[in-house]
C-alpha cells in the first residue's frame, strides 16, 4: 500500500510542479535556518570532556573582607594565590590543579621569524592527566618539577609546527623573553570547547594556549599574567602573590559523589579555619559545582546565539504555517480525484494515509534542501570572525535532528489539510466532475 501511495504522491508532484516546489522550498528554508542556529547552539553548549565532566569540580571560596558585603551573594569566581596553594598542598582530591592565563614573548630559534606573543597557561602538574590532554611527544612535567620551580615547558602542536617544523622538540630550549624553558612535552591537537578551565580570558571559546609552564616557575620568571584580577581591601594590583586579589582558577577531580561530599566539607573546614585566623571575614560561603553546572552558571553560551535560536524557531513556524496553507490549497484542488477514489471504495483512513505519505515525501525533500541550506548557513557562520566560528560543524546527531524535524514539521503541516480533504462526500464530487 505504501508503495502505491508513494506512486500517487509522485504523480501528483509532477502535475503540480510549482506548488510542490514552493512547499519543498518553504520547508527547506525553515529547516535550513533553524538547523543552522540549532547546530551553533548545540556546539556551544557542548560538554568539553564527555565522560569526565561529572568528575571535575570547581570550588569557590569567599576570602573577601566585609566592605560592601551583602548576604546571599555568590563567592568570587576565582581564588587567591594563598588559598589556591593551600588547597593544592592539602591534596584532598584525586587530582587538583591551580592555574592562570598568561602571555609570553616567544623568541623563535630561527632568526628569520620575528618574535611574537603566545598565550600561555601557568598551571600545575595534574592539569594534563585531569583534563586528559593528549600528548604527541614527551610528557607533562611532574609535581616535583612544580616544587622545584623547574624551568620546563609543554607546548602546543601548532606552536611546535611553527617553531620546530613539527619535529620532536623535547629537550630543546624555548626562549621566552629573558628566560629559557626546556621543552619536555608537545601536545597533540587539543581544542577543548568551551575553553572551560578559564572563562575569564577574552572569549569563552578561545583556543587552548600554546605554552604551558609550571605556575611557580612562571611567577618566578615574572612572566605576564593574563586574565581577570579582582581585588578588595584598598589594594592596588602590584605584589599579586600576597595581595587580597583573586586571579587563579582551581579545579579538582572527585571520582564519586561521596568524595564530592567529603571535599565540600573540607572546603567548609578550610573556610572556618581561615575565619579563625582572621583572613576570611565573611560568613561561610563555599560552592562546589561540577563542570557543566559551572558552565551553566557562567552563562557561557552567548545570549546572541540563544536569541538567534528563538528567531529561527519563529521563522520555522512561519514556514510551517505557510506550508499548511499551500498543502491545503493543493489537497483541496484534488477533490475530484479523491472523490473518485472514495467512490471506488477507498476508506477515509486510506485517503488520509495517502495524503500523509505525500506530506512526508515533501518533508523529506524539504529536509534534504534544508540540509544543504544548513551546510551553507554553517559555512557562512564559519566565515564570521567570532572565536567560536570554527566550531560550527554539523555532526551526526544534528543530521538526524534535521530529518526528524523536517518530517515532523511536514506531517504536522499535512494533518489539517489531509483531514479536510477526507471530509468530502464521494457522490457530490462525482457529480461535479
Amino acid at each position, binding site marked *: 500500500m505504501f508503495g502505491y501511495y508513494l506512486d500517487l504522491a509522485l504523480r501528483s508532484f509532477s502535475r503540480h510542479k510549482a506548488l510542490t516546489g514552493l512547499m519543498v522550498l*518553504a520547508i527547506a528554508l525553515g529547516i535550513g535556518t533553524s538547523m543552522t542556529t540549532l547546530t551553533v547552539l548545540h556546539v556551544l553548549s557542548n560538554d568539553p570532556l564527555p565522560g569526565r565532566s561529572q568528575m571535575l569540580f570547581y570550588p569557590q571560596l569567599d576570602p573577601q573582607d566585609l566592605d*560592601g558585603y551583602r548576604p546571599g551573594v555568590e563567592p568570587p569566581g576565582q581564588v587567591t594565590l594563598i588559598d589556591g596553594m593551600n588547597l593544592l598542598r592539602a591534596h584532598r582530591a584525586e587530582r587538583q590543579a591551580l592555574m592562570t592565563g598568561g602571555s609570553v614573548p616567544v623568541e623563535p630559534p630561527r632568526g628569520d621569524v620575528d*618574535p611574537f606573543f603566545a598565550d600561555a597557561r601557568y598551571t600545575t602538574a595534574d592539569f594534563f592527566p585531569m583534563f586528559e590532554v593528549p600528548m604527541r611527544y614527551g610528557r607533562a612535567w611532574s609535581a616535583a618539577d612544580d616544587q622545584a620551580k623547574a624551568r620546563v615547558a609543554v607546548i602546543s602542536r601548532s606552536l611546535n609546527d611553527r617553531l620546530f617544523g613539527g619535529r620532536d622538540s623535547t629537550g630543546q630550549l624555548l626562549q621566552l*623573553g629573558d628566560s629559557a624553558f626546556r621543552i619536555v612535552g608537545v601536545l597533540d591537537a587539543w581544542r577543548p570547547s568551551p575553553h572551560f578551565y578559564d572563562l575569564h580570558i577574552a572569549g569563552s571559546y578561545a583556543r587552548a594556549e600554546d605554552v604551558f609552564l609550571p605556575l611557580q616557575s612562571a611567577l618566578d620568571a615574572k612572566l605576564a599574567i593574563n586574565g581577570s584580577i579582582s581585588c578588595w581591601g584598598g589594594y592596588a594590583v602590584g605584589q599579586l602573590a600576597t595581595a587580597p586579589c583573586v586571579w587563579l582558577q582551581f579545579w579538582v577531580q572527585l571520582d564519586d559523589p561521596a568524595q564530592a561530599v567529603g571535599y565540600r566539607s573540607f572546603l567548609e573546614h578550610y573556610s572556618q579555619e581561615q575565619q579563625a585566623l582572621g583572613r576570611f571575614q565573611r560568613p561561610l560561603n563555599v560552592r562546589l559545582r561540577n563542570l557543566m553546572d559551572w558552565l551553566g552558571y557562567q552563562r557561557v553560551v552567548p545570549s546572541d546565539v540563544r536569541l538567534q535560536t528563538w*528567531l529561527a524557531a519563529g521563522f520555522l513556524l512561519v514556514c510551517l504555517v*505557510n506550508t499548511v496553507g499551500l498543502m491545503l490549497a493543493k489537497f483541496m484542488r484534488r477533490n475530484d480525484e479523491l472523490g473518485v477514489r472514495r467512490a471506488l471504495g477507498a476508506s477515509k483512513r486510506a485517503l488520509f494515509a495517502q495524503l500523509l505519505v505525500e506530506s512526508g515525501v515533501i518533508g523529506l525533500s524539504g529536509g534534504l534542501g534544508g540540509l544543504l541550506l544548513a551546510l551553507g548557513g554553517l559555512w557562512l557562520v564559519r566565515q564570521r*570572525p*567570532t572565536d567560536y566560528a570554527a566550531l560550527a560543524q554539523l555532526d551526526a546527531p544534528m543530521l538526524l535532528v534535521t530529518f526528524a524535524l523536517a518530517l515532523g514539521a511536514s506531517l504536522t503541516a499535512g494533518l489539517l489539510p489531509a483531514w479536510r480533504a477526507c471530509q468530502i462526500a464521494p457522490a457530490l464530487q462525482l457529480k461535479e466532475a
Partner: protein
Amino acid sequence: MQIRPILATLRKHRIPAILIVLEIALACAVLCNAVFMISRRVASISLPNAIDEKELISVSMHGADPTRAAADIPRNLAALQGIAGVQAAGVISSLPLSTDNWGWSFGTQPDSVLEDRSSDQNTNVSLYMMAQGTERVLGLRLRQGRFFNADEYPGSLIGSGALPSTHVTVITESLAKKLWPGQSPLGKTIYSKPAYFTVVGVVADVLRPRLFGSDGLRSYHSSFFPMGPDQALANYVLRCPPAERERILREAVQKMQALNPSAVINGNTYEAIRNRYFADTSSMAWMLVLVCAVMLAVTAVGIVGLSSFWVTQRRAQIGIRRALGATRGDILRYFQLENFLLVGIGILLGMLLAYGINLFLMAHYELPRLPMLYLPAGALALWLIGQGAVLGPAQRAAAVPPVVATRAA
C-alpha cells in the same frame, strides 16, 4: 464598498482565512523583533567617536624592556615623526575599540573604596594614559577647561600598579554628566581611596576600548591621564593624510621593528581597528537581514498560494457576479479588499504577539522595550506585501469570463 459580502464569504471559508491571518500575524511578530535587533546592531556599529578616525594609524609595541622605556619612547617617537607624510606622532596606553581595556571604578566621595568593580556608588571608567601632544594627534575635542600642562607629564608613572601617580584627569562629556549631573565638572574630584584625580578638562565623547552593553550610555565612560615614559605607553599613534595611510603604516612598522628587534610590533589603520571590533556585529546584522528577507518572501509565496487556490474555488461565484454585471475592476478590488482585511486582522494579532515576544526577550536577554514606531512600520510592510502577493491571483480572478457561470454547476 462591499465589506459585508466579503465577511460572509470569509465565514464560509474559515480555514484558509484563518491561515492567512496566522501567516501574517507570525511574520509581523518575528519581523518587528528581528528588525529591532538589526537596528540595535546598526546603532552600535555607527556609534560616534570624537577622534579623527580617518587620519590615524596605530603601531603597537609589546615585550620591550620596561627599564629602557625612558630612553626608547622618545627615540621611537622621533623616528616615527621622521617618516615622510607623518603630521604628528604620539603614544597612548590603549585605543578606543582596541579591546585592550584598562578599567577602574571611581566614586565622587573621598571615602570611595578602591576596587575594580562597579557598584551603586562607583562608576567603572576606562583609563587612557598618554604622552604629551597625543591629544593633538588623536584630535580630541576640548569642550571645557584645559588639557594637561607640560609639567604634569614627567612625574606621572604607573609601573606595575593599577593607577597613574598623577592627580589630574580629563574626562568625557558623558562621564561628567553621569558623575555630576547638572553641575560643572571642572575642579571636581574622582576618588578611589587612596588615589584621587581632579578634573581639569572635559572632551567630546570618546569610546572605551571595549563597549559594555549596547545602549551607548556606558560606552563613553572614558578618562585621560598624563603619563611620562612608562611601559604602559604601548600604542604609538600617527596622524597622516588618509590617502597615504598604507605606505606610512608599512614604513612605520619596519622602522619600529628595526629599532626594537626583540619586541612584538603590530600596525593597523584606525579604521581597521574599528572595523575589526564591529566585524562580528555587522556580520550578525547581515544574517538577520537575510533571514527577514527570506521570511517575507515565504509569507508572500504563502499568500499567493492560498489566494490562487481560493480564486480557483470561486470561479463559479465570480462568473455569476460577472454575469450579473460586475466589472473586472469590481472583481479585482473585491480580492484586494479581502486581502487588506485579512492582513489587517493578522497585523493586529501580530502586533500583540510582537509585544509579547519582546516582553519575553526583555525578561531573559536584557533587551530594551520595542519602540512603538516599529509596529506601524511592520504593518505597512506587510500590507504592501499582501497587496503585492494578491495582485496576480486577483487579476486572474478578474479575467474569469461571465460565461463560466452558465457552464458550471
